[in-house]
């Protein structure tokens, strides 16, 4: 990417940021929520992309980190009286730690086995959250003390999204990111070239765990109530993966696009067709997985609309 292009992207990001910051004051509470969740999915999709898109290790269990963040925030705020903001930091650190511990053995597995193992991890975390009820209140769930927080949470999510975009962009364009791509293309060759695959994979994995955790914490505070099934929801993992795939795995713009489009489409169909929307959604994702595995950006590259580079 040339300097000019970098500056242009930066300017774009800046103006969008300002626009989005002013936006909530003009919107109703419902739309504020909508915007917040859209941004949340952008964060999730980008984070997922860091490990699955760049490295090629498709994780079906990232919702585990989201859940960890949500629970960290809930337990500390509701049971220990912390102010909400620092709990996000705790959630992030916790997720990073769990990511490191789990990632190390699990990243040794290849392809679909890694995916299934991650799925198992997510479900396992859910079961632990349900059973360890002295800590998590189990099936009862945790209720936050009531608060009018739609503006605070919006701003927090906006900040998180901007940070995630910047990090994803930086990672994508750095030596680190290029090494990850090399690992995706051919791990053995990459190792032969001197790339410490284990370390890099783990780093990407841990990094990708942090953002969902913070997002989970913010969301928990927004909704004011969590319980294991709602937070360790497998649909969230699918949404993450789908949005990144729809937009284009392995790119930076891809997940953003995918998240915005998919979440908006989902919300519109839910509002207007409450019963049928799930089926339409299901069919849609089957078709995307089948016919557009490289996503919209890949599609655009093929058509020559966008210049091909390793990452955008």
């Amino acid at each position, binding site marked *: 990417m040339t300097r000019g292009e970098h500056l242009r992207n930066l300017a774009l990001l800046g103006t969008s940021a300002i626009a989005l910051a002013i936006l909530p004051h003009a919107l109703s509470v*419902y739309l504020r929520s909508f915007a917040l969740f859209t941004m949340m999915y952008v964060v999730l999709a980008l984070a997922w992309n860091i490990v699955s898109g760049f490295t090629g290790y498709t994780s079906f269990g990232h919702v585990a980190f989201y859940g960890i963040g949500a629970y960290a925030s809930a337990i500390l705020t509701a049971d220990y009286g912390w102010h909400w903001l620092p709990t996000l930091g705790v959630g992030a650190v916790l997720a990073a730690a769990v990511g490191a511990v789990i990632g190390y053995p699990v990243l040794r597995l290849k392809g679909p086995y890694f995916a299934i193992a991650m799925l198992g991890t997510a479900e396992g975390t859910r079961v632990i959250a349900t059973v360890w009820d002295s800590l998590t209140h189990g099936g*009862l*769930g945790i209720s936050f003390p009531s608060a009018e927080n739609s503006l605070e949470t919006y701003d927090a999510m906006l900040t998180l999204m901007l940070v995630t975009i910047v990090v994803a962009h930086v990672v994508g364009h750095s030596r680190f990111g290029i090494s990850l791509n090399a690992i995706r293309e051919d791990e053995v060759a990459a190792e032969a070239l001197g790339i410490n695959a284990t370390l890099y994979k783990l780093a990407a994995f841990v990094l990708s765990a942090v953002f969902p955790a913070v997002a989970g914490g913010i969301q928990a505070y927004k*909704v004011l109530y969590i319980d294991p099934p*709602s937070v360790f929801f497998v649909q969230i993992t699918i949404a993450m993966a789908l949005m990144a795939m729809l937009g284009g795995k392995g790119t930076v*713009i891809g997940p953003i696009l995918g998240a915005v489009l998919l979440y908006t489409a989902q919300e*519109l169909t839910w509002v207007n067709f409450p*019963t049928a929307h799930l089926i339409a959604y299901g069919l849609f994702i089957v078709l995307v997985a089948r016919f557009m595995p490289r996503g919209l950006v890949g599609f655009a590259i093929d058509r020559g609309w966008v*210049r091909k580079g390793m990452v955008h």
Partner: protein
Amino acid sequence: MRSTPTLAGALVALLALGVVPARAGHRPNNEVLVGGAISLTGQYAEPAGRQVNSIRLWVDDVNARGGLLGHRIALRLLDDKSDIQTSIKLYEKLITEDKVDVLLAPYSSGITEAVANVTERYKMPIVAYGASASPIWEKGRRYIFNIVAVAETFQKGAVHLARQIGVTKLAVIGQDSLFPRQAGKGAKDWAQRLGIDVVLEENYPTKQTDFTALLQKIQASGAEAVISNSYFADAAAQLRQMRELGLNFKLYSSTVGPALPNFAEQLGATAEYVLGFSLWEPLPGVLGYPGMKEYIERYEKRYGEKPNYHAGGAYGALQVTEAALKHVGSFDSEKLRDALATIEVQTVFGRYKVDAKGMNSHEGLTFQILRGQRRVVWPEKWAETKAELPIPEWSRR
């Protein structure tokens, strides 16, 4: 990148698109909007369905009398699919987008707890009829009121009956969610007070259908009776599997399942002798609340079956709401809240007069399924017949 300016434009356009589906709640014809989200589908659909029946009946009854404070009622009922997150979203929408005038409560303690946060935040009063877990009212909330008795009392009769037949060891099991756990807590407390030993206490996941190992565990613990804080599917599965495994207990009591009319139908002989709890039964001769007889007749005429306690509770709560609105003379939320906190109303469901926390003191009855019918067996002042306990063994039935 050439695509980025268009991307930014697309992003903003999309967000603007979101403005389109925002419909403001309009009020044509001097109507008033009464709305809520309840479980039309999902695991709570059966009990919630009966509450919906009462809601619709009430709306028609009130409209026939000239409406709420002279305004015709427009009803908006949304489906929360028995899911907490969906419910929260729907209530936010109903309050902020659709701007309902009067709120209807959801079913289940878990969902009500989550929704209570929303109503508290927007300062809209709501009378709950589908929640019995006292923690909801232990948080200093001002905008939620209850008409039904709390979960802790649900198994009181069963435990007393267990004592009467000389049970000394009890197993308490239940679904791992708010209401069953509170019911379990209550059961334990009563057992301790009556000198019964709780030898096993276990919660199972809400979707569990295979209880083989759990039932074996219960038998291994030496429990003579089982208190099961369960809904329909799990209670049914437990009974069937107890029969298949040839496991005999002196007493088996479930919370919600047996109160549903088709429980006895579907299980047939397997449901005999099962104890259940009911907050209310359509027995005007026994309970004698004002207007009961007429309400039961109207309900039966319209729906082809007698109302059960879910239906009765919903109707009672709506009667209270109507009375409070009449008292206030307007739909002002604050005044309505104050009225609900102080008035006393006699409804088809019983007396409504809440304490400082917003909870009503309501008494329910324990029944036993005998020859396919629910017969009240406890408390003695309302008992139709003596309980047939201990339960005879499967092989001898």
